[in-house]
Structure formats: structure tokens, C-alpha cells
């Protein structure tokens, strides 16, 4: 499978990348290419020019900035999974990044590409929602920040404008509680059939003081399962309550169906993995 012809150019800075984008009709950025190349081969995308941003140094770092961790768009999943700052401050993100696709994908795929591509079955959007991340873009009119709640609009669709470059993502570091990521992966592609990110904070008596649950693979884009959160907020998570609450995981979305998983099956797996994720987060919190 050979994609249609395109011009190719390397950019060595954000400014150069943006000016190339503005001056070329129908150009696309490429970094890891693990979302874009399959689309180009199937001719779902046929950009006239590829601007290779992979060597832009300033987009390759992970740094702690006060109570946030700022991750450059070009950081690979492998880098994120193994970075000491992230393992300590954002353990569920490290866990999820370490389970994206497979080794080859993690070696090459980047967080910027992953979020900008917004595949419903990709892992990191749920983590961005869980932590309440902010997506930092840069365009001809300067920088623009997107709160994650306003970023994912639908399958393969985000609020990012065609003239903008996704520069970095910043994650607030939770000051309490514990978080985990549970995933039922497609055995061949490694994409999430169901992925559940959960964060819980409890008081000394085991009462849930705060909770967030985000899912991917289930609906047209990653989402917060607010019904589950509300059912558990302010209460003690007994097995019975947790079981009941987990079944609300698909309450607010239209559940996807494909050759691998029917709607009912996916709904069932979503409930099971929501329960497991919350349980593991609770066990971690009380340790």
C-alpha cells in the first residue's frame, strides 16, 4: 500500500513548522506517523505536503512546572511510560502509556499525535480527561489553550484548528487519592476495546471524597462517566454499591459496535472494567 504522492519538508522549529503550514495548501504535520500513515495508505488522508516536526527539540521534553507536568507533543509513549517524573506524579498516565499498542508503536508514537488524532479506541484521551489536562496549541494568532473537556469533539475530531500545531499537554498533579488505568486490549492491534481510568480519594473511614472515571474504546470519543462518579460520591464503596455503580458506565453514551465486540458485549466489559479500575484505585488508596 503506497500513499498518494506528497511533498516532504523537515521543520526544525515551531515557528518554521507553522509558517510552512500557513504557506502550503493541504499540508499535514507528521511526527511518529503511526496514526497518519495508515490513513494515508488507505487514502482516507492525502495531504499535498508532509511537514516533519520530529526533530524539533523544544517539543521533546517532560518537565515539572509547579503542580503541573508539561509534556511536549513529541514525547513517545515509551518515554512517558518510563519517565520518573510521570511515574511518580501521574502513575495512571505512565501505566496507560506503557500499554499503548505494542512495543513498536510505543517506540515511535507520540502523545501529541495520539491526542490530535482522537481515535475513539486510543488510550491517552481518557487519561487527559481523568487528570483534567490542558492542551496547548500554537497557531498564526499565537498560543491557544484547550481544556480537555472542550478538546475531543467526536471520532477523529478535535477542537484543534487546521492552522494550529499541538505543542504540549499539561497535566495537573493530583494532591491526594490514587489513580489507575485498566484496559481490555484488542489482541492484535492493542487498541482498547474498553479502557477505564479511575481516580479516587477517600477519607480515613473509607468514604469517597472525590472520584473521577473516564472511559475510551466505548463511545465515539473518550468521556467521563459522571453517573458512576455521582453514584459513588460521598459514600463508602461496598462491593454491592460498586457493582451497581459500574453498570452506569455506559449510561451517557451511544456504545460502539464492531466485528470484534457487539454493543451488548462492550457494555458488559465496560461495567466489569469500571468496577475493577475503581476497586484497584481504592485498594491503592488505602494501602
Amino acid at each position, binding site marked *: *500500500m*503506497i*500513499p*498518494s*504522492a*506528497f*511533498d*516532504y*519538508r*523537515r521543520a*526544525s522549529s515551531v515557528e518554521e513548522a507553522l509558517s510552512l503550514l500557513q504557506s502550503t495548501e493541504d499540508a499535514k504535520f*507528521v511526527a511518529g*506517523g*503511526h496514526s497518519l*500513515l*495508515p490513513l494515508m*495508505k*488507505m487514502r482516507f488522508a492525502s495531504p*499535498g*505536503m*508532509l511537514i*516533519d516536526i*520530529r526533530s524539533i527539540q523544544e517539543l521533546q521534553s517532560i518537565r515539572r512546572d509547579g503542580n503541573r507536568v508539561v509534556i511536549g507533543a513529541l514525547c513517545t509513549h515509551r518515554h512517558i511510560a518510563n519517565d520518573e517524573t510521570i511515574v511518580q506524579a501521574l502513575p495512571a498516565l505512565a501505566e496507560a502509556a506503557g500499554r499503548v*499498542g*505494542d*512495543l*513498536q*508503536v510505543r*517506540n*515511535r508514537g507520540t502523545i501529541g499525535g495520539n491526542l490530535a488524532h482522537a481515535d475513539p479506541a486510543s488510550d491517552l484521551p481518557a487519561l487527559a480527561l481523568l487528570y483534567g489536562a490542558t492542551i496547548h496549541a500554537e497557531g498564526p494568532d499565537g498560543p491557544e489553550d484547550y481544556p480537555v473537556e472542550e478538546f475531543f469533539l467526536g471520532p477523529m475530531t478535535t477542537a484543534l484548528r487546521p492552522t494550529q500545531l499541538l505543542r504540549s499537554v499539561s497535566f495537573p498533579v493530583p494532591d491526594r487519592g490514587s489513580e489507575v488505568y485498566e484496559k481490555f486490549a484488542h489482541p*492484535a*492491534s*492493542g487498541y482498547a476495546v474498553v479502557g477505564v481510568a479511575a481516580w479516587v480519594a477517600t477519607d480515613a473511614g473509607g468514604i469517597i471524597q472525590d472520584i473521577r472515571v473516564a472511559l475510551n474504546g466505548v463511545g465515539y470519543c473518550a468521556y467521563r462517566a459522571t453517573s458512576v462518579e455521582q453514584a459513588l460520591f460521598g459514600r463508602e464503596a461496598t462491593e454491592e454499591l460498586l457493582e451497581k455503580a459500574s453498570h452506569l458506565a455506559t449510561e451517557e453514551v451511544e456504545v460502539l459496535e464492531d466485528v470484534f465486540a457487539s454493543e451488548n458485549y462492550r457494555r458488559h466489559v465496560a461495567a466489569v472494567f469500571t468496577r475493577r479500575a475503581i476497586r484497584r484505585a481504592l485498594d491503592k488508596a488505602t494501602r
Partner: protein
Amino acid sequence: MSDAVISASGRTPVRMEVNGVAETVYVEPRWLLSDVLRHQLGLTGTHVGCEQGVCGVCTVLLDGVLVRSCLLFAVQVDGHRVTTIEGVTPDEGLSPIQASFQRHHGLQCGFCTPAMVLTAEALLRTHPNPSEADIRDAFSGNICRCTGYQFIVDAIRGCSEEER
């Protein structure tokens, strides 16, 4: 390669070190690394299966890191180092990993084997004594339709133990 635009129809020189040898190939931007390795350089040990990043048979090492050559344009690897199965195979006989695959019946049709061997090379460099879980995780991006994987796991374990 300069930072000038490489036009879609023209061919541009790409310089890369392949299996320790400096190579220059003239490519169109849309040519995949997998195809360039096979057709321009005659390195047909790199196989091409699904061509969409799932099966893993096109796996090579890029600067020592495991990647899929079907998801890379050759222009993107200008200035980099590529290792294919030919690069880890001795002139005579088999490498220890290859010998272990043979001993443990870790292959049947052999189509996935070059990628499996390279994945084993990469794994054993960082995990000289991997657990079964390490092995299965490392090989999750390589699909084999013959062996059921168990003999491949045996081959890696056998090799790592014997190599100690």
C-alpha cells in the same frame, strides 16, 4: 538531505547506515522504508504483511530501537542507522537467538521469524533474563499464525538461559 522541500515526483538522496554499511538511496517521499529496504537495497529478509502497523513482520531496528518499517517513510530515516535481520545474521551459521529458535521449533512457515528474531535481539539487550510476562509483552506487536507462540517463548527463554 537539505531542509529544502522534496517534491512529490522527484527523487531525493537519503543517506542511512544499513547493517553497518553507509548507503545512499534515491527515493520519492512516499516510499516506505520497508519497500526501500527490499526493493532498493535487496534486503528481502524484512517482510511485508498487513502494511498497516498491526502484524509486525516489517520490524527493524532504527538506531537500535524496535520500529515498524511499513509505518515509516524512507525520507524520515535520513541520517539514521537501520538494522535488519541480515545485520544480525552471521556470515556462516546462526546467531545464538536464531539457533535457539531452531532448537525450540520457534518457527514453522518462517514468515514472521525475521521480525521475531529482531524483537528478541532488542529484548535481550535490555532484559538479559526476561520473565515469560516480559517476553509476551515484548512480542505483543509480532503476530505468528503458526506456532501458537509457546515455542517462541521457549526459544527466547532457552537462549537467555544458555547465554548467561
